[in-house]
């Protein structure tokens, strides 16, 4: 009896020691097989342990970057049904050069389809980032940016939402389980019409979960503060002054209209965000951007 207790303890510690999800599954399989061989646990018990580990490891991590990409495309389509694209090649080229340079320097530079930026034709002060790396900024928000450093901070905040998977996290837990269950049982062949119908339903649900929190309700304050901090770190890494984020927030504070359906509704108040940023960082330098940078910024957004 004593021996059994000791061996069970060893098995449990083997499971607990290795924390990575895939490794846990692997380790559990091995540990339970070993346990069965040693006669400590019955085959049925072993099977039960293996099954529950598989269920637990069904999480967001199991969505491949490819699936996040398709989710992202659909969420982007929903955004574009609310706001039309701003078809100005010059400004779109500029924000893609700036945005993709920032994304390339981030901790998650590679996502399935890459990062792509588009200006939205609206006076609202708003921005969105899909799990697939489609990032949108309204003309109204660009008008709040006094410098390239400020615009860089806005784009870096959105890149932060992608890296931290804030969009994916707003999918309801039950739906994640549902989707991954279909995926687990699905055969390796092309999807049958029943599977497609089932997956499309889950897909639609996931899209409305994300669109709802992104466009209507906003993410949690915590998520926004995390994205602000991610922005501060990223712009500094690339060589911009993070004070740019404070600059744009101050202008936003004056321009946001109470009751508006944009950042006024979905983001914490600019002064709260400023206070939060200040509390996490040392004072940023107040050196003005080089003239040459300011000049190209003003040129690029001249008609915004």
């Amino acid at each position, binding site marked *: 009896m004593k021996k059994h207790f000791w061996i069970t303890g060893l098995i449990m510690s083997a499971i607990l020691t290795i924390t990575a999800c895939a490794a846990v599954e692997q380790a559990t399989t091995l540990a339970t097989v070993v346990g069965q061989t040693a006669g400590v646990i019955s085959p049925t018990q072993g099977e039960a342990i293996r099954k529950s580990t598989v269920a637990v490891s069904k999480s967001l991590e199991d969505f491949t970057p490819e699936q996040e990409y398709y989710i992202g495309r659909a969420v982007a389509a929903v955004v574009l049904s609310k706001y039309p694209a701003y078809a100005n090649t010059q400004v779109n080229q500029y924000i893609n050069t700036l945005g993709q340079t920032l994304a390339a320097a981030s901790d998650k530079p590679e996502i399935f389809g890459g990062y792509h930026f*588009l200006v939205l034709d609206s006076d609202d002060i708003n921005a969105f980032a899909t799990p697939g790396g489609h990032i949108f900024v309204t003309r109204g928000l660009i008008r709040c940016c006094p410098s390239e450093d400020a615009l860089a901070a806005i784009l870096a905040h959105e890149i932060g939402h992608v890296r931290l998977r804030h969009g994916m996290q707003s999918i309801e837990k039950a739906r994640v389980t549902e989707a991954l269950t279909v995926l687990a049982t699905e055969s390796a062949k092309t999807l049958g019409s029943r599977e497609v119908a089932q997956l499309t339903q889950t897909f639609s649900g996931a899209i409305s979960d994300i669109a709802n929190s992104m466009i209507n309700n906003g993410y949690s304050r915590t998520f926004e503060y995390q994205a602000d901090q991610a922005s501060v770190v990223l712009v500094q890494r690339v*060589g911009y002054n993070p004070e740019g984020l404070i600059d744009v927030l101050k202008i936003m504070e004056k321009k946001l209209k109470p009751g508006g359906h944009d950042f006024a509704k979905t983001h914490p108040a600019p002064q709260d965000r400023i206070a939060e940023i200040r509390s996490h960082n040392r004072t940023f330098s107040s050196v003005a951007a080089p003239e040459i940078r300011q000049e190209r910024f003003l040129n690029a957004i001249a008609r915004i």
Partner: protein
Amino acid sequence: MLRIRLIVFALAFLGVLFLPIYANAQGTLSVQVKEGELRATPSFLGKIVDRAAYGDRVNLIEERGAWKKVSLKNGKIQGWMHSSALTTKRLALKAGQTNVQTGATQNELALAGKGFNEQVEASFQKENRNLDYTWINRMETFKVSPDQMRNFLVQGDVTPSSEGGKP
């Protein structure tokens, strides 16, 4: 008898502990992005020397921070890829596609082309005819090369404090 059992068990236990390390030592990874880029240097500004396709298997040669030096199947071309482009999972591609991996087990949940894919998107679009993908397809063509990024930084007098990714 008890002793032998214990020794066998202890060895199995050690095996479990070192399993992940052993798996890494094999050093084969899958490309998990649509178009993987191999660079001359471990930096986001590094010149692109070759590309790898989704699901391609690469061999790990060296690691430096978040960057991995890898070689493609034939081993001729080597280059640096960011770890976010790679996964230790094997991405079994659908039949009909190139580089088909056989013998995928049911536990390999992450399979390329499965789940939310083109087929599901087409079905979703059919149900949501108000959604227009034109601009999404167009924005996905906006691409900036490492050369353009370098020029952009130089011309704007922007000096990176490090070359991207966690050290």
